[in-house]
Each structure stands twice: as structure tokens, then as C-alpha cells.
């Protein structure tokens, strides 16, 4: 009883798309040859040369869609201008919007998409669906291409680990590439911790409770979180799941395995936070959609010590941060000696995703744009514009770093290979945005027990696992 609503135009376009998919294979075979062997390619076919390794057609136009959020779109305009300088005959057009899905999704469906899409923000497209529908181009060829700065080094080798992995969504290849690294953890004012409270950063949960107690005596709350977005708690809890139970615990979550949220490690982490709530160390009441701003403002004013947050906070809170605040991030404390991973394990995924629509008129141009984004100068510019850590290795070495970024760099170095990523948050967004959010909303107010929280997440996992409308990523 199946049918497909395909019309002639779609068939034509799809055959063109198939042609595009065939290109990477051809390119691998003739890496240094001039083109002409892949006739299925659309208008964007150009000659592949040392100077133009992706074979971009010099005069093909390029359209870029950038999410106009906390990062603005100036950093991207820098790259678009680079593209314009390199391909003088091409017309470049960059659009900034807060509504990526609203603006781009209809064009993907119609088969007339832009060439580069910054799939970010609250209104982003479900990447799993886009990839499943073959609407995103495989970017493996870009990763294999020589990097902008050094033709002897592949783009892939200039990037920190995790970037390619994040872009796969269980399919073969890489369809979405992130440009900035986010560091999650417990953010605090180094001045408050070391001078006001005369303490060191707590490496164990017992030390954490002790610091909170000390803070309480001085009229400072040990913790706070945005009540309007309680899902922020994951930023402080996730690495602890992995630390306490090892990677298999978080992998079970990623692959929606039964019992994933019933693990003892998960339980002990929830119990740890339950104690914070029970002892009234947590400052509550930052409700509504602007909760994170209200919370961060209270935090920079010294009302609370630790906040679960991501590395964007330094930029977001810069207007209210005192000069001597010395913003810093700490890895999550160890629960006890039985922990599987050492203290320092860091939840740090690459973020700010980009994709190149498969049916774009200038797919190679789109890839070239990303190759430029991964250049040293674009990465340094990105950092200069919005103070985030680019995923390009060592790009910002030697630059003067604000305290939060410097602290992030230190945390990443200390973590070494113990970097963990919550893939389920990216793959099954509703589990994070809706289910985990609902659970933490109640849990942090003391309205939900550890058992209820775990049961609810377990139930959500089961629901997603059998939901035919959700694309599942299988263990490879």
C-alpha cells in the first residue's frame, strides 16, 4: 500500500542529486586530474586544480544562510567575503535569520535550497530527518581535501576529534560540520571561590557539599540554574554519568537501550543533586523564557557560586560581568573512588552546525565555503568576533584569551582523551528539549524523586525507541 508522491521535476532533480553523490568516488580516483569525468554533476562543476581542490566552478553564485543568534553573522560574512575575493566572478549572498527551519526547510523540500546552511538556533531543522531524506550533501570529500592553510594537511587533520563523528548521524559519511567547541561544566567566579570562600575547586562531591556549606554561611547559594530552562542541568550532570559509570552508561543512553536511565551511576548522580536541593543550596526562581539571562545576571552579581552552563556564557553575560570576576569552568566532581573515569572528564561537543544541501546549485562552492571557515584566519576571526573556541586545532594559540576561554582551554587539555558527548541530545532532540526538561523542572524544585526522574527518562527512551517517526541511529 505504499505510494510515492514524485513528479517528473523531482525525478529530474533526484537524478541530478544522484550524480552529485557519485562525485566523491570519482574524485577519490582522480585526485589530481582535471575534471570532466563526472557528467552527472550540476552547473557547479569546475576544474580541479591544486589551487581549487574541490573543483568549484569559478563563476557559480553562492548563497549562505546564517543563524542570527548570539553569534551574530559577522564571523560568517568574513568567510563569505573570503569566498568573494577568491572567486571574483561569483556573486555571493549571505542571509541572516533567527528562523532557519522556517526559511530553509521549504526550500529543501522544493529542491531549491541555498548552498550553505548554519542549521542552528531554536528553530533549526531536525538534522536526522534532513540526512535521512538525502537533503544534505556528504562532506567527506571536504574532510579529505587539503586544508586552506597547508596543502599537505587534510582538512580532517586540522580539526579537533569529534567533529566528524558528530556529523554522521548514524549514516555513512559526514553531513553536518560544527565550527565551534562548546565546553559544558560548572561555571564559577574564581575570585569568589578562592578569595571570598578561600577554597579550591571541589574535585569530589563531598568537597562540593563542603564548599556549598561554606558559601551558605556567607549568604551565597552554592548553585543556581535557569528555572525556565531546567534542562541546563544536563550540562553539569552528563559528564558525571560518564565519570561514575564509564562510557557504556552514556552509550546506552545514545542507543536508547532499555535500562539506560536505570543504571546505578545515573542514580548516584541524581542522588547527589537531590542532596543539593534538599539542603537548599540551590537558588531558584529564575522562571520564564529569559531565565538564563536573569540567572546569569544574579550569578555575575555574586548571588550564587556554581551554574550549569556552556562556554557561550562568557559572551552572553559580558555586559554584567565585573572586571575582576575571573570567570572559570570546572569539570564535574567525582562521586567516589569507584568512579570509572577520572576527575576532569569533560562534556565538550563541537557545536554550531553547518550543512550543504544536496540539491544546492553550488554544492562544491558550499564545501569550499566551509573549507575557508576552517582556515586559520577565519577561525581566529570567529574567536575575535564572539569569543568561542574554534574547532580548528591550535588556531587561537598565542592570542590573548579572556578568562573563561583560557579556563576552557585548560579544562580541555586536562581532560585529554576523556571528552564525552551526549549524542542522544543531538539525535533525539525531543528527549532533551521536552522529556529531560520536564523532569529537571520538577526535580530541581524537589517535586520529583530520584526514582520518578529515572523512570520518566526510561519511559521516554522506550517511547522514542519505538516511535516510527524518529530516525534511529544504530550502534556501528
Amino acid at each position, binding site marked *: 500500500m505504499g505510494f510515492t508522491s514524485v513528479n517528473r521535476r523531482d525525478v529530474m532533480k533526484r537524478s541530478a542529486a544522484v550524480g552529485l553523490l557519485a562525485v566523491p568516488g570519482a574524485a577519490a580516483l582522480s585526485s589530481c586530474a582535471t575534471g570532466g569525468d563526472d557528467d552527472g554533476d550540476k552547473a557547479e562543476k569546475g576544474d580541479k586544480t591544486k589551487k581549487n581542490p574541490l573543483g568549484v566552478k569559478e563563476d557559480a553564485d553562492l548563497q549562505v544562510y546564517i543563524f542570527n543568534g548570539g553569534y551574530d553573522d559577522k564571523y560568517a560574512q568574513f568567510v563569505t567575503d573570503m569566498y568573494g575575493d577568491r572567486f571574483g566572478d561569483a556573486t555571493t549572498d549571505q542571509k541572516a535569520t533567527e528562523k532557519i*527551519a522556517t526559511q530553509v526547510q521549504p526550500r529543501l523540500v522544493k529542491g531549491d535550497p541555498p548552498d550553505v546552511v548554519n542549521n542552528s538556533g531554536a528553530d533549526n531543522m531536525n538534522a536526522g530527518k534532513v540526512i535521512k531524506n538525502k537533503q544534505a550533501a556528504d562532506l567527506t570529500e571536504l574532510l579529505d581535501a587539503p586544508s586552506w592553510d597547508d596543502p599537505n594537511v587534510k582538512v580532517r587533520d586540522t580539526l579537533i576529534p569529534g567533529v566528524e563523528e558528530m556529523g554522521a548521524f548514524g549514516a555513512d559519511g559526514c553531513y553536518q560540520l560544527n565550527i565551534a567547541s562548546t565546553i559544558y561544566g560548572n561555571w564559577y567566579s574564581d575570585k569568589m571561590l578562592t578569595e571570598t570562600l578561600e577554597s579550591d575547586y571541589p574535585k569530589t562531591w563531598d568537597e562540593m557539599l563542603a564548599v556549598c556549606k561554606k558559601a551558605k554561611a556567607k549568604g551565597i547559594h552554592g548553585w543556581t540554574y535557569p528555572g525556565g530552562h531546567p534542562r541546563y542541568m544536563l550540562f553539569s550532570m552528563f559528564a558525571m554519568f560518564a565519570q561514575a559509570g564509564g562510557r557504556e552508561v552514556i552509550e546506552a543512553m545514545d542507543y536508547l537501550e532499555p535500562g539506560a536511565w536505570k543504571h546505578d551511576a545515573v542514580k548516584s548522580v541524581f542522588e547527589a543533586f537531590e542532596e543539593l536541593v534538599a539542603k537548599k543550596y540551590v537558588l531558584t*526562581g529564575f522562571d520564564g523564557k529569559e531565565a538564563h539571562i536573569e540567572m546569569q545576571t544574579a550569578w555575575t552579581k555574586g548571588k550564587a557560586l556554581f551554574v550549569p552552563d556552556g562556554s557561550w556564557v562568557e559572551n552572553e553575560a559580558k555586559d554584567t560581568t565585573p572586571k575582576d570576576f575571573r570567570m572559570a569552568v570546572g569539570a564535574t566532581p567525582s562521586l567516589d573512588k569507584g568512579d570509572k573515569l577520572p576527575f576532569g572528564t569533560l562534556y565538550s561537543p563541537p557545536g554550531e552546525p553547518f550543512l550543504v544541501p544536496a540539491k544546492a546549485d553550488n554544492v562544491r562552492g558550499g564545501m569550499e565555503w566551509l573549507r575557508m571557515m576552517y582556515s586559520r584566519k577565519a577561525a581566529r576571526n570567529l574567536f575575535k568576533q564572539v569569543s568561542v573556541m574554534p574547532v580548528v586545532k591550535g588556531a587561537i594559540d598565542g592570542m590573548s584569551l579572556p578568562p573563561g576561554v583560557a579556563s576552557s582551554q585548560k579544562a580541555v587539555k586536562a581532560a585529554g582523551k576523556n571528552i564525552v558527548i551526549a549524542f542522544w541530545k543531538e539525535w533525539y532532540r525531543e528527549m532533551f528539549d521536552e522529556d529531560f526538561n520536564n523532569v529537571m523542572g520538577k526535580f530541581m524544585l524537589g517535586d520529583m524523586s530520584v526514582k520518578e526522574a529515572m523512570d520518566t527518562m526510561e519511559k521516554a527512551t522506550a517511547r522514542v525507541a519505538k516511535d516510527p517517526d524518529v530516525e534511529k541511529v544504530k550502534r556501528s
Partner: protein
Amino acid sequence: MKTAKPAESPPSTTARAAAGGTRAPSGLLLLSVLLPPRFTPERVKRDRRYRTLDKYRFIAGFLALPLAFYAVFVISPFLQAIYYSFTDWDGGATADFVGLDNYRKLWNDDRFWDSAKTSVSLLVAAPVITLSLGIFFAYMITAGGRHRRGQAVAGVVGSSFYKVVYFFPQVLSIAIVAVVWMRVFSTRSGLLNGSLGAVGLDGLEKPWLGGDYNLALFATLTVLCWSFVGFYVVLFSAAMGAIPRDLYEAALLDGAGRATTFFKVTLPLIWDTVRTGWIYMGIQALDAFAIVLVMVPDHALKVTPVFLYQRFREGQFGYATAIGVVLLVFSVVFSLIIMRVGNRDRIEY
């Protein structure tokens, strides 16, 4: 009706004798309807069926454009949505027919029932509150004031001013209304908690949008009623203004007080308007999308249209349209019930 009225029938007596006119061949009749009237043969013109068709052709001629617009922009999206609700469309090039799978999933989805519970609560409560307030204010404006010389009824002092003020929220965009109220309800920096604290009612300060379901429902209802009550004040004022003054005078002479006048004269006479308003407000309450999406945090409360929106956002277009179809059925059933319940003999005046 076999005999035609003389005015409509052609002068020919033979035609009248043939019981309603001559019968032209059907093919010729059809052709005549499609061609301009001046090409219509004489004998077709005398056909009763032609005259009927001619009348409808005339009306349809005027309505063709609006009907076409209606068909393209209202009817066809409805039909498409219903069609998509039987597919697993997710934004890609293909959509497979899955029968009732989406509806089965809906039936078993706790999240849907949770949201439906909220939507139905609003559907029941919002019209009652809004319409009661609307009628009360409208009555005060048109007939609630002191008796003045020479007038049977009069509004309270400054009624024309109030009429304008009540309408203000209606002028604001609903998104702005939601943002403003979000600020008012803010736990730490909101006007509401601030004023409660200022007058010493600290005990009543609440985290209105802090995650508690009942508080969030209260907040949503407040904003919903606040933003729509002005519209109903104007609507009911107009309806009350249409009631002849002599009815009020008669009631006054019979010794009826304000309350009696209201229940025995005003309310029965504006009942039709109340019923219409009820349906309209019910549909507004069933929607409540913008207010809840903008103002209320997800984890506190969710209405069905927000749940639908989230499914859309996740690319589950087939499932989302199924929810939309269920909402449509909800609205229609609600309207039918209210039409039934409120059905009274119309009073002519």
C-alpha cells in the same frame, strides 16, 4: 410547485399549458448554460430547468472569484492536511500512506492526552469567565448607571472612555501581550509579585510560571481572558444597544431593578450574540497557541497546539497534521454542542 407564478412565466400560453414550460433536449440545455444568454434559443429559455440554472449561474457569476479563493486557500489546505495525516511525511520528497497509524500513535501518546487535558480545561473555563466579564462590563456601560432625567437606562459615568480602554488589548499583537505578561508573572522581577510584596501580601507571592501546573494554568487563563474580554464588551455593547429603549422603560415602570432587568430583558434579547461569542471564544481557548508558546515554559504546561508545533519542529509532519485534524474535530464538535445547547426561539424586536 407545478404552477409557475405569472410574473416569472413567459407570455406564451402554450408554455404554461405544458405544465411548467417546454422541455428542451438536455444537451442543448447544457450548452446554453455554458454559453452567454444571448445565444440561448427561444425554446430553451422557456424550459423551467433552464430558468433555475440561469438563476444559479447568475449568482455563481458573482461568487466565482471569492469561491475560487475559498477553495484554493481554505478548502484545499484542509483536504491536504487531512490527507497528510494518513501519511508518514517528514519533509522529504516522499510520503508513504500509513493508514490510521498516526491516529493510533496519538491515542497511545501520554503527551497528547496531557496537552488535551489542558486545552479542554481552557475550553471550558475561558469562555465562561470571558463572556461573563464581557456581559457584565457591557451591561454596566449601556445600562448600569444611575437613572438620568428623560432616559430609561444609561451607562456608568465615563462609559464611552471604558469602552475604548477595554478594547486596548485587542489592538496589541498577541505576541506582545504574551511577552508583557511573561514579565508581569516573572517570579523574581515581575510586577505581580512585586506589588504583592509592596502591599504586604508576601504570602501570595508565587512562582507563577515556575513549573507548577495549576499556577501556569491560572496565568494562561488570566491572559487569555484579559486579552479577549474587550472584544466581547464591544460586541455585547452593540447587541445591547440594539435593544429598543421602550422595553427598558416598560420594565422600569413595572418596577424591575437592575438585576431583574438584566436577567429578564437584556440577556434573553442578546442570547444569539452570546452563543456566537461562546463558540468564538471556545475556539480561541482551544488554540491559545501564541500565548502559551511565548509565555509559559514548556515544562509547566502545554496545550495541544503547542504539542502539535513541537511535532512539526521535529519533522514529524504526518503525525502533526493528525493532531491538527483531531483539533479540527474538537472545534467542530464543540461548536455543534454549543449551537444545540443554546438553541432557543429567536425573539423578534
